């Protein structure tokens, strides 16, 4: 996978919150599992560095969109994150908006992605 094939920072900037909220909507996870899930979902195109992920998690928590709790029942002390009601509502709102946005981009890019055949 070339570096150029990864999603650009600009693309990620506006969508990382939504991605993380989506991952936590599936089930509670700790940071490492969230990163792993994002990597699985995005294939080689999506690489969210730990140095980006943890501040983002703390910010989402400060905004009341997710909450955390420490758990050491697995023998290892870990901080688990889960979605709050506010976070779920936000996710639903943003998901609808993103769907419309993606459709819009898709329509605009259609001629570029599938150009009409050139006249012979």
């Amino acid at each position, binding site marked *: 996978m070339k570096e150029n094939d990864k999603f650009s920072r600009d693309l990620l900037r506006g969508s990382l919150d939504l991605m993380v909220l989506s991952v936590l909507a599936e089930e509670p996870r700790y940071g490492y599992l969230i990163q792993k899930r994002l990597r699985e979902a995005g294939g080689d195109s999506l690489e969210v*560095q730990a*140095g980006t992920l943890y*501040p983002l998690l703390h*910010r989402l928590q400060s905004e009341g969109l997710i909450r955390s709790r420490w758990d050491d029942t697995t023998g*290892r002390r870990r901080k688990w994150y889960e979605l709050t009601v506010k976070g779920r509502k936000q996710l639903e709102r943003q998901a609808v908006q993103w769907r419309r946005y993606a459709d819009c981009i898709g329509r605009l890019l259609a001629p570029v992605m599938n150009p009409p055949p050139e006249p012979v």
Partner: protein
Amino acid sequence: MSEREFETYLTLLCRLLRLDADQREAIAGELRDHLEERLTELKSLGVAHDEAVRLALDEFGDAAGLASEFSSIARNVKRRRFMRITVGSTIAAAMAAMAAMALWPEAQPGPAPATAVAQAPQAPKPAEGLAPQPGASAPSAPASARPLERRLSAEFIETPLRDVLEFIADASDVQLYTNEKRLAAAEISVDSPITIQLRNVRVDMLLDLTLAQASEQLAYVMRDGIVLVSTQEDLEGAAEVRIYNVRDLLKLPDASHMQAMPGMAGEGGYGGMSAGGPGFGGEGMDAGYGASYGMGMGMMPGAAAPSRDDRAETLVQVIRTAVGRGAWREQGDYGTIAIYEGLLVVNHNTRVHQQVERLLDMMRSAARAEGQPQP
């Protein structure tokens, strides 16, 4: 390379985090767990141990940047809890600043008879018997790019001094260093409760009010772009020399023109100060921050025009009287001011330098409003 690298990184991170001990430990614990798990995964993929340690650390980036992000998030939480920021647009700030030019904070240092507020040449009121000044140019807009001249609104209710200063630094985008050792030595707590609720207040004034509320001994200076907060005693050593070119102000004016110039200290002999002086500038300065003064580099109507040296000396006297609140060597303090060939050499702290600059700006604006020659 070993996991000790993790601990070194986390220790450094914790040192850089501007958070309390519990928060630092929680972040370190969370990141340590991630690093260890990532190390295990990378090794299971066949990556050599040392390389895996390096890769795991690389994914967190540099500790300073990460610490800054965590600290910033924590500050935002505090801010949401205590404060409301409304840093105005540049234009709005400039407009408001012009309106408030007459209101200059004079909280410190040291005792002084009265606050000197120089004339604000903006918007003379026709009702005062002065003809409107159609040609009057507004004073040059204060450089809103100067962080301490920005405006913001803040609501502090029993907020610890440390948090207030952090907020001010954040909102005005300045680096602020508090010499906590000096404060402790002076028995001033960084947790002193501050209660201030103000809208659209200049950062420097907010700093003045904040420090004054915490202790009369506190002061600040700006050095190399950093606001240093400490005790006055400590900061007195932080004086710096600045040179102001005032040749334009020392040009001899047309006496007949000067006679008509409003706002002059007509009764005060050659220039100097005239308490509550008439004319524009006297208005709008009743903001409860000390007494107001009308001020002018004037001369007695009809009197012989003073020499350039006389005017230079007058300018020095005006500055010494109008700013610094008596903090000049001649008045028993440490600041010095001298003039040489139209260059004003001032050795004082940042606050006084700002006041000198502002005063000179206002004098130039006033002169410009009257069609005086400008550089």
